[in-house]
């Protein structure tokens, strides 16, 4: 008799091996190169990537079998993201397969499941997430986007007004899953509902927010008298907070940061190997310290995932991985910038596109810098480091 953890470990190892052969044998060279060099990926690249994963059965590997998934354990989910990131693969866009998909299969109507789940799996429809609002980043109680239910002859609908912010890839999205207020004056948590909004609806405006990495990731999404059919409400009115928490639980097991840190460390070591001999000693110590922190992150993360599977978690596991992972990743990036020296401050915009001219300096310098800027936000988005510490202080330490 094998215990579930041992079995999950074996399956995770198998999955990792399969990913490595996929990377060697199936993954197109242009996608590999773009991703490895942190070049700019466009929507087509991402859709292609997500479909490649789906072809392997991996895009929705964590879904239950009845919805086409493989019912992965937490450990497999974690190992999947970790292994892809170690190889320097593109981001596994989570909004469909990881965030809204599970909410729909867990709480959606049969019609919603039939309508949305297949196209999420294949990325035939691209999703975005409408959570944050100006002035209500981490504080959902401050949510102001309102949805008012109106009865009409063609069936009920909601009229939605408000503004979402930091909406990643809203410019590509077909659908937005959205937290809205469906009741006033009530206790914040009981007034929030979970609505699916067609981005082509009249009244939806997407406005880019330029960020310092120079590319277009995040947006403001303005919702002005947007008419949303009542059947696009997930579950019950006022239960949005419950679904959001469920979704957050899925967000928690993010192995990507471990793999990303590993990949960045390997890149840093290659850069260091070319550094002037005089500075190599000190660099070696600095890299060694980062590697040691990586080892701590890695063993703590995998043990945390196993604790969650055993049900022996203390509740701070996700925060630990997020805090340590993002901070380590940023420090690796800083070491890479320092190692590049003067080549690390050239904004090699041309090198960030597939048909690139010769780079100004080392081949991957442009991507390292762009990534450094992009990931400066890693300790801010998805629950800022300060929020993570607040959560642990209150929820785990009882302070």
């Amino acid at each position, binding site marked *: 008799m094998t215990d579930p953890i041992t079995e999950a470990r074996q399956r995770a190892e198998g999955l990792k091996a399969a990913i490595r052969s996929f990377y060697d044998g199936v993954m197109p060279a242009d996608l590999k190169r773009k991703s490895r060099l942190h070049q700019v990926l466009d929507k087509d690249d991402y859709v292609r990537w997500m479909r490649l994963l789906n072809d392997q059965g991996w895009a929705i590997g964590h879904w239950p079998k009845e919805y086409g998934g493989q019912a992965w354990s937490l450990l497999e989910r974690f190992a999947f993201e970790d292994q892809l990131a170690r190889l320097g693969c593109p981001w596994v866009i989570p909004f469909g397969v990881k965030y809204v998909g599970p909410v729909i299969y867990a709480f959606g109507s049969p019609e919603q499941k039939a309508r949305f789940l297949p196209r999420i799996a294949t990325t035939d429809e691209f999703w975005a997430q409408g959570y944050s609002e100006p002035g209500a980043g981490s504080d959902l109680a401050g949510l102001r986007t309102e949805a008012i239910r109106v009865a009409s002859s063609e069936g009920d609908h909601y009229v939605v007004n408000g503004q979402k912010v930091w909406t990643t890839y809203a410019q590509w999205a077909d659908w937005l899953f959205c937290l809205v207020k469906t009741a006033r004056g009530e206790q914040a948590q009981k007034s929030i509902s979970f609505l699916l909004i067609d981005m082509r609806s009249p009244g939806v405006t997407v406005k880019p927010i330029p960020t310092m990495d120079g590319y277009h990731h995040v947006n403001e999404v303005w919702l002005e008298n947007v008419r949303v059919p009542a059947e696009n409400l997930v579950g019950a009115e006022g239960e949005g907070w419950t679904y959001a928490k469920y979704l957050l639980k899925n967000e928690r097991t993010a192995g990507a940061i471990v793999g990303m840190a590993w990949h960045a460390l390997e890149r840093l070591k290659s850069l260091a190997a070319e550094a002037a001999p005089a500075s190599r000693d000190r660099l070696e110590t600095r890299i060694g310290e980062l590697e040691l922190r990586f*080892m*701590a992150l890695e063993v703590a993360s995998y043990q945390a995932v196993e604790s969650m599977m055993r049900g022996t978690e203390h509740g701070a596991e996700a925060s630990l991985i997020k805090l340590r992972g993002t901070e380590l990743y940023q420090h690796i990036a800083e070491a890479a910038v320092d190692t590049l020296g003067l080549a690390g401050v050239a904004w090699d915009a041309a090198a960030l596109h597939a048909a690139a001219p010769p780079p100004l300096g080392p081949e991957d310098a442009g991507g390292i810098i762009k990534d450094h800027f992009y990931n400066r936000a890693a300790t801010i988005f998805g629950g800022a480091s300060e929020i993570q510490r*607040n959560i642990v202080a209150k929820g785990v330490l009882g*302070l």
Partner: protein
Amino acid sequence: MNMDLETAAMLRDSAARYAADNYGFLQRHAVLREATGYSTSAWRDYAELGWLALRLPEAHGGLDADPLAVGALMEVVGSRLLMEPVLASAIVGTGLLVKLGSDAQQVALFPGLADGSLRLAFADAEPADSPCRVRGGRLSGRKISVLHGDVADRLIVSALDGDNGGRRLYLVDPAAGETEITRYRLVDGRGAANLHFAGAPAEPLGADTAAVEAALAEVLDEAAVAACAEALGAVRVLVTTTCEYLKIRKQFGRAIGTNQALQHRAVDMFLLQEEVAALTLAAQQALGRPAVERARVVSGAKAYICNAARHVANEAVQMHGGLGVTEELDVSHYFRRLMVNAALFGGRDEHFARFLAAGQKLGAGGMHA
């Protein structure tokens, strides 16, 4: 070795219960005043509880415990700051004897180890100007900072083999003469000694230099990992104690734990505790792996834990304010124990260097490619 989480957990629970009942803060204060630097009655209890046979082979009535079980005991040792020579004698000394002792040596010494009547100490560090050397069965030279060397019944001493060359281990009976012992206390109150051998009778331990080197490396890694577990026990107590103090201590009319700055620092202590736990477990698991990989994980863990434990100890003192540096509060005792813990069986710099070297040997992909 079969890693067995459940057996370890049971041992941890029973040891913790024993220590809670018999080794409270005040009881320990009395132990600190004993001439031996530890409690002889507790030591007898340990023998009865089977702790001293943990590392002995089953064939000799021992438990042949795996690193998880050893770690479980060491966690309790760290959490209650037990003063007895568990690590020095029952783990390190016994481990060397198990790996290197001849049948005759084992038959002669194992019973005493199991019943606690024989205490071992391992003498390794020496001043650069007086290395230890054995010629014709006689040992000369100096050893320093020998943990529990003040009370050991037998010493295991590393020395150059002046007859055949190479580094060997020797069994020395300090009572057999030609051994001068300077006894003192470490900062955590445990006994130690500097030793001066002037032709002390020395009996070789281990068949040859190669066997000694291999066994020594393994046992020293076991010792380092046991020290990690001890640190984990102490760190857990400091984190818990500090969080409790933050809840009860009031300043300017409210609990100081309501201050977000202290909350965030407490969280950082807690995160370090979790990393110490994770690295300790990883290092225990690594003890069975090939030498370079074992070195990478064990030394990485010890180096990281030295620093993590120092940070936790510093923060625990700081957040307890003036009380944190007094004898009356246990915090300062954990602070000192962790200081000794960090220096024993390889300090942070030594282990970090070994971690780096092992990484280079493992090559670009490391263990995790």
